[in-house]
């Protein structure tokens, strides 16, 4: 088992390097660099830029040098924890990410939990009561969930909440709690706001999970080991939970890893609509304005998150499925 984990970790190293190279190249690909777009922006506002500033900026980030030198400089800084400086926010990238990542993470995690808590039981119900009214109902809701864009759901959610309670749920905290120190009151305030974005971000995932769970379970239920267990006198509930569910859930576990970045992506429009301080809108801004260090750093972090998630999935899968343990 330890060797299995170790091997997975070693494999992650070249993949991480590859992600950094690709991320860097893509960000560098458009003509111009952030200094020129920065200057263009300032000049449009009527500011006068001193040529020394331009030169010092270019020199600081080595923009005049060949790409591989730039890459190397960036990677070495990245490893040391210096993610560079954001031109749009005029702050070190580390600070921006440190401010935004926790809320992104909280929403994603909560979405993930909601996806499982809602999706798995409904999937089981749909499979065990195949072609029943409940199954058809959830199938329709499921397809609607997949087909409806998140931002629309966010708008509808906002409107519904407003018409029912009269409150506008924007952001993660009430205005009076925005700057309060973190404590129980603030936590409760967070909970009263976060469920809406978490639910909306998780809708598509939930709908997909219902379909996956249903299909997997329908594959397992008629298998002979289930009949054999039934013929041994195993109770109907245990017949479902102990055997087929255990196997049907494996593919779900193996997708947890890449569900995380998908959720972050899903946050972009929802965050814009609901005014959430997450990382997703920042990524959008940085890409549009060629804020190189910010964009590359976020992409790197998302990439690493995916890898870590995949590693976790692999480990979990090896724990629950002896066939995988046996194969390594």
């Amino acid at each position, binding site marked *: 088992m330890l060797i299995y984990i170790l091997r997975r970790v070693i494999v992650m190293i070249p993949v991480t390097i590859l992600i950094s190279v690709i991320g860097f190249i893509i960000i560098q690909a458009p003509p111009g660099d952030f200094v020129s777009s920065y200057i263009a922006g300032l000049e449009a506002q009527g500011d006068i830029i001193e040529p020394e500033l331009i030169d010092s900026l270019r020199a600081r980030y080595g923009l005049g040098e060949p790409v591989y030198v730039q890459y190397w400089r960036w990677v070495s800084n990245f490893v040391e924890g210096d993610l560079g400086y954001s031109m749009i926010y005029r702050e070190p990238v580390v600070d921006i990410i440190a401010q935004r990542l926790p809320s992104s993470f909280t929403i994603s995690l909560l979405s993930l939990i909601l996806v499982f808590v809602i999706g798995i039981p409904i999937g089981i119900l749909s499979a065990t009561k195949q072609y029943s009214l409940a199954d058809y109902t959830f199938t329709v809701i499921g397809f609607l969930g997949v087909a409806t864009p998140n931002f629309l759901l966010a708008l509808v959610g906002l409107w519904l909440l407003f018409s029912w309670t009269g409150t506008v749920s924007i952001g993660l905290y009430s205005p009076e709690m925005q700057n309060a120190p973190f404590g129980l009151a603030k936590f409760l305030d967070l909970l009263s706001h976060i469920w809406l974005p978490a639910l909306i971000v998780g809708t598509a995932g939930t709908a997909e999970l219902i379909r996956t769970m249903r299909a997997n379970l329908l594959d397992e239920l*008629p*298998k*002979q*080991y289930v*009949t*054999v*267990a*039934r*013929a*041994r*006198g*195993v*109770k*109907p509930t245990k017949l479902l939970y*102990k*055997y087929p569910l*255990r*196997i049907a859930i494996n593919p779900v576990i193996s997708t947890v890893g890449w569900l995380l970045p998908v959720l972050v992506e899903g946050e972009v429009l929802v965050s814009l609509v609901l005014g959430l301080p997450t990382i997703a809108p920042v990524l959008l801004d940085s890409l549009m304005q060629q804020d190189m260090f910010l964009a590359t750093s976020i992409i790197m972090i998302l990439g690493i998150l995916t890898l870590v998630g995949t590693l976790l999935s692999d480990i979990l899968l090896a724990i*629950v*499925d*002896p*066939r995988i343990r*046996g194969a390594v």
Partner: protein
Amino acid sequence: MTAQQAGERDATSAPGGDAAADPLLSVRNLQTHFFSREGVVKAVDGVSFDIKPGEILGIAGESGCGKSVTSQSILRILPRNGKIVGGEILFNNGDRTVDLATEEADGRVLRDIRGKEIAMIFQEPMTSFSPVHTIGDQIIETIRIHQDVSKEEARDQAVEMLRRVGMPNPVRNIEEYTFNLSGGMRQRAMVALSLSCRPKLLIADEPTTAVDVTIQAQMLELLRDIQADLGMAIIMITHDLGVIAELTDRVMIMYLGKEVEHGTVEDVFHRPQHPYTRGLLASIPKMEPGRVEIEPIEGVVPSPYAMPTGCKFHTRCPEYIAGVCEKRDPPLTAVGPGHEVSCYLYGGREELE
């Protein structure tokens, strides 16, 4: 062993197989139908048989004759669209007799009988165990469902049962998964699983079909040993008449959900009466010097949605009597002691007039 010897064993050594004993299981006019969009399939359509404690009964017939559905009906583990629509399955459960046909399918009574009083072996040993649980886990689970014993005690019993079925290293094997075991070992593990609570009746549904001949031979030997040892009754379901001859005391031949002939192995194999039984026996390849022509039964098995009227076999029967066979189901007629045939050649025609 030949059919001749099997017949002799029936008369002399079958434990508890004497005529006086009450039947352990008595199936009366069982009808199990499958309902689908295409129509109703009468998979089992009026089958009756008895099995006494310690007796070995064979049920033989081609694929689709309803032999497996019969066994699934007894344990009430039919697929969702299968239903028992008539008949009785009377099981003598010690102090009282229960009708398994009318009990709730997954209710208390049946759950207590499954695995404890009546156990079943299935066709494919590989898929009989959950791939993500050890074989020990599943054997111990079965023991603890039916007996009030500690985990350790159940484990000891499981190890003992694995030893009894000839697993080479029971203490280690109990921790293994099916994908670690060879085909023969899986068979043995499966037998151990089904016998873990010492059932009174073991139903073996084509246990030798998916394995090669050497393992098949081992399996039959194992079943015979275990039967001599534990004394349970066995219903052996197979399309392989060789297996029937090897193992069983009595045999029932089925065709399209109907019983066509039953009797001792000796009677049925040496003095087959029904044209279908004769056809089946003639279509077995023989290991004699020189080439003996195999005589297959003419025609094809009718579609289950368009069953022939009267005797189901009349469309393929070489001795078809026009104006008689297609009229009505032939009744069972005794042609010897304990030997009955369902065919108008031997009687029942007077009822038609």
